[in-house]
């Protein structure tokens, strides 16, 4: 479904990604781990078109996407969350969740004038928003400005926006960072549920290895922009490279 093929990316001489290749097949949960600065977020930035690779290519459903803009990639079915919340801060939580759905008729400049053309869709959308608010326990802050909620709640909206995207592939960048452990568990439960009910594919960057290893089908371990170990959680856990990478040996 998604193939990252020998992608490199440097920032002023610093090799953030070094001929990295990964292969994501539909219907699974993939975990990406690695020390800070190993290139995990950069990889997401390349896949979603925020950054262009220096070399190599990214292929999604048989189509080269590294030449596309983020908005086109989104419309092909890839959605992502950000490590640092990147919300629409002057808008309410509910509005933040109303924005992601694709093909909103009322977002079209010309059709916006004709309320009849979009009102029903907008109503239906609100049902979806309501469900997401319920799932993420955000109802009590739904009408607050998204700048006026806690950091943990902001991370939940990051997740909520991906839930509103109707995607094929979801990339989550540290979804439980700054969230309390009970809720973090809950988040993984939700991810699993969505994956099962909607047949989505997840790639999750995560520092809570216990939870990730319990839920992921396949793990990529990154170090200095390269994949240094990959396979089932059991395999990666038992790989001596894991300790090496983290202990800097």
């Amino acid at each position, binding site marked *: 479904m998604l193939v990252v093929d020998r992608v490199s990316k440097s920032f002023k001489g610093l090799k953030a990604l070094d001929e990295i290749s990964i292969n994501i097949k539909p219907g699974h949960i993939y975990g990406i781990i690695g020390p800070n600065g190993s290139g995990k977020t950069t990889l997401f930035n390349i896949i979603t078109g925020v950054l262009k690779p220096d070399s190599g290519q990214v292929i999604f459903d048989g189509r080269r996407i590294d030449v596309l803009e983020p908005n086109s990639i989104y419309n092909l079915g890839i959605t992502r969350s950000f490590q640092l919340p990147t919300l629409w*801060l002057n808008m309410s939580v509910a509005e933040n969740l109303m*924005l992601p759905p694709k093909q909103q008729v009322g977002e079209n400049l010309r059709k916006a004038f004709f309320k009849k053309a979009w009102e029903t869709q907008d109503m239906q959308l609100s049902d979806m928003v*309501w469900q997401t608010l319920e799932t993420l326990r955000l109802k009590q802050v*739904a009408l607050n400005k998204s700048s006026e909620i806690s950091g943990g709640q902001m991370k939940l909206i990051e997740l909520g926006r991906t839930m509103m995207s109707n995607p094929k592939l979801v990339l989550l960048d540290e979804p439980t960072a700054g969230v309390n452990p009970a809720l973090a568990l809950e988040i993984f439960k939700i991810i699993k549920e969505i994956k099962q009910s909607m047949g989505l594919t997840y790639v999750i960057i995560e520092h809570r290895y216990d939870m990730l290893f319990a839920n992921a089908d396949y793990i990529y371990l990154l170090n200095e922009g390269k994949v240094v170990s990959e396979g089932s959680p059991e395999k990666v856990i038992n790989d001596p490279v894991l300790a090496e990478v983290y202990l800097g040996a």
Partner: protein
Amino acid sequence: MDFNQLISIIVSTANFYAIWLILSLSLNYEYGYTGILNFGKVLFFSLGAYSSGFLAANLANIMAGVSFDICSVEAVQLRLDLAKAVPQLPLLVFVASLIMGAALSAAVAYLLYISTSRIKEGFVLGIILLSAGETSRIVVRNYEPVVCGYHGLVGIPNPYTAAGDPTSASFLLSITIWVIAGVAFLFINKLTATPYGRKLKAIRDNELAADIYGKKPSHERRKVLMIGSAMAGVAGVLYAYYLGFVAADDFTSLKTFDIWVAVMLGGVGNHLGAVTGSLVVTLIDRGTRVLRVFLANLSIPLETLYLRWIIVGVLMLLILMYRPAGIIPEKSIKTLGLLRIIERIKREKT
């Protein structure tokens, strides 16, 4: 001050207000909703005014089959005579100017926008627009064929010359100005109280997130700048026809500044803010002018035109300190979907 004087002050204030209002609504659409730093609002305003002067002068020459210098006394006389002889003509030229002013402004907006669209930093576009405004003013001021250089172009006939007497004609023009401002208000409200408006605010609040969630920031901004500029062009046409003359020096960046003050005072991201802010700015502007005449009559030597800037500055400071969101703060766009969520939450609370 007699009654007639009072009426004429009120009418002229209302005219200026309507024109400022169109400009403020357009800037609020661009900046308040979409985050475009349009520091060149006056450029598009001036293009509308130049279109009016240029068309009125050259069409008169063409109609009469003469080739007078458009700035000469004969040409001015010809315009006014022609308007009397063919009283429907000025209305037609007025409508043509509205179309040309809007189209020219939108086209220039398009070109300036795409010239910087590779650069993501919004302030770069802002500076380009600012300098384009100043440059075009200086060029037009020194290049007579557009609107007679620094003398300005006089003798733009009232579009309602057909009405007969000048008082009715100018009253009809005032009504036209108010109606167009009203239509601009309704238009922009109808357009933005929608998911479209919400999308623009997303682009404003966080361009990266908007892009990642499928909105097209650059594409949308370009369209917004074109529509906002067309509105400013229309305001410029109304301004030129109301004054009956056009001069490049009327279009300094101080005009842009005034519109920004109006939008910031009123409150960004909501149209009632623009309505309120531009009213405040118009009242200060007109008020200090009236006060100046009044004081001069009493031979009190106080220059109120400076007073105007002091009042504006102090107001701006007060607002920024005590009400940073403006007189009327921004509200959520309450589409039916959002209203439904609000209702459900209320219901759960009770």
